């Protein structure tokens, strides 16, 4: 229980970072970032074994994470900074000229913690499979995680990768889908319905586990189970129900906050709902 409370306190600070970063440059994607805050916090502060002192691209003997839906860069950057990959004060440079914290994550500026560029959707699972296959060749037992959006499932490459991961038994791969039901043009169910996503992955040969991605206890338990279930022949999909804009009452559940920045007044309102637990950057 103490662990869950600790993670929730970190998540509160991460959410503050997200809205402050997006407000600071008046651009970026707060909605999905807020929805996935609990997942990324649990991943980096509880489940993943990572080396943060000196970032190594090869990720040997550590768990690796890929953010396929790169527009969730605010939550990714905040979690990386709070975990110690780079200076927390660097968050203030988000989306600014010459910053390593580009609009979408990239290795191009050498930001520690980032292992590939993402933003153009649908590519992260393929990248994660490659890293997972590399771990197998190196007899490295650690895991590879990847987060995708639900709208991102409309990209064809995702299904090429889904077929490969199951067909080639990439069982050190754990893929998560941020199932918030929203995309830029509106509800996913209207823009391009996904059908029964869990059943689709199961029919491809995946192990599928659905859970509430905004319940820290459930997130932690699901991740712990994923590690226990790994290395048994099948890739795993974590179908994570979340609310876009989670944690801020006027943002929650609306696709309008997919890619919009808060005003000064809205920022003040948002921050009043989130406890400053670790100190703002």
């Amino acid at each position, binding site marked *: 229980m103490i662990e869950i409370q600790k993670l929730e306190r970190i998540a509160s600070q991460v959410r503050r970072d997200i809205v402050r970063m997006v407000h600071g440059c008046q651009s970026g994607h707060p909605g999905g970032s807020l929805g996935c805050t609990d997942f990324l916090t649990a991943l980096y502060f509880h489940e993943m074994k990572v080396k943060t002192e000196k970032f190594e691209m090869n990720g040997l003997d550590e768990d690796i994470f890929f953010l396929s839906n790169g527009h969730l860069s605010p939550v990714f950057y905040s979690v990386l900074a709070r975990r110690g990959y780079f200076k927390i004060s660097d968050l203030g440079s988000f989306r600014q000229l010459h910053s390593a914290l580009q609009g979408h994550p*990239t290795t*191009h500026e050498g930001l520690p913690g980032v292992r590939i560029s993402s933003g153009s959707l*649908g*590519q*992260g699972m*393929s990248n*994660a499979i490659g*890293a997972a296959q590399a771990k197998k060749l190196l007899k490295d037992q650690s895991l590879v995680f990847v987060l995708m959006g639900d709208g991102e499932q409309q990209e064809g490459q995702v299904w*090429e*990768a889904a077929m490969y991961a199951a067909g080639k038994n990439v069982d050190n791969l754990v893929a998560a889908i941020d199932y918030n039901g929203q995309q830029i043009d509106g509800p996913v169910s209207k823009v391009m319905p996904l059908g029964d996503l869990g059943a689709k992955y199961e029919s491809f040969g995946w192990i599928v586990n659905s859970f509430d991605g905004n319940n820290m206890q459930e997130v932690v338990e699901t991740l712990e189970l994923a590690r226990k279930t790994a290395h048994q022949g099948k890739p795993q999909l974590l179908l994570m129900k979340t609310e876009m804009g989670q944690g801020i009452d006027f943002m929650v559940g609306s696709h309008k906050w997919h890619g919009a920045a808060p005003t000064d007044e809205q920022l003040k309102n948002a921050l009043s709902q989130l406890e400053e637990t670790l100190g703002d950057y």
Partner: protein
Amino acid sequence: MEFIIQNYQDTRSGFGVGLHEVGKANPKVVALCADLIGSLKMDAFVKDFPERFFQTGIAEANMIGIAAGLTIGGFIPFTGTFANFSTGRVYDQIRQSVAYSGKNVKICASHAGVTLGEDGATHQILEDIGLMKMLPGMTVIVPCDFNQTRAAVHAIAAYDGPVYLRFGRPKVPNFTSDTEPLIIGKAQMLQQGTDVSIFATGHLVWKAIEAIQQLEKEGIHAELINIHTIKPLDDTAILESVRKTKCVVTAEEHQRNGGLGDSIAQLLVREFPLPLEMVAVNDQFGQSGTPDELLTYYGLESQDIIAAVKKVISRK
């Protein structure tokens, strides 16, 4: 200079032999293929290093993405499919996961150009050099024969960075030395001359050799340089040649737009403007036919190079 044909071999077989050799020498070399092992001549690698071979099925986008991921573990992935599926089909995957991410992926592409033959325009990509050379940090290599393609594989395996390696389907004269290494970015002088500089790449290098032999009989002393590395271009060798000859012909199995001629024209416009003629496909799609019929129809034969030489000399 005498050019001796050792045998007739396809450049893709040079790739296959080279891949097997680098795979044997370096356990970090891995290979991926999208259902074209036989066409890419990757059989020997697959047979001897099955644990380092990844069959992706007909899913090229996923193949490029997996290759990028494999580099993160320190591996050196070679992807193999036709040139069309290696570039146009997966441009965004190469752009984001490989080039922008700075990943050490070797994109190896066979059946480039019209000499693919009977399959027709859907498979005969003539735009791939342009697509690849536009990507920041991408190295683009087009070897001219079997031996040079094999040497190219060794060179790119030892080089750290993304590479596009283009080769082809038909058996063509194999004339370069089987011991000469390919030095990335260093043009290969094939014959010194004074009247015109011919810069050729890929299959058109042998066509250019045939052309200069005929031209010599007519009293025209052509300089012939093989540009196997289109990017980074060997500016120094090119400028040194054209300062002497004062006119230029380029020859390639590619569109004028975006090809070798385009790169050399840009260099000359910046540094030393001169008359230039391009032997290349001019804004057309290919079609079904034999390789020889297609080379003739699209104006990529030795007589086309000869005509271009005479024209450019008249423009001096």
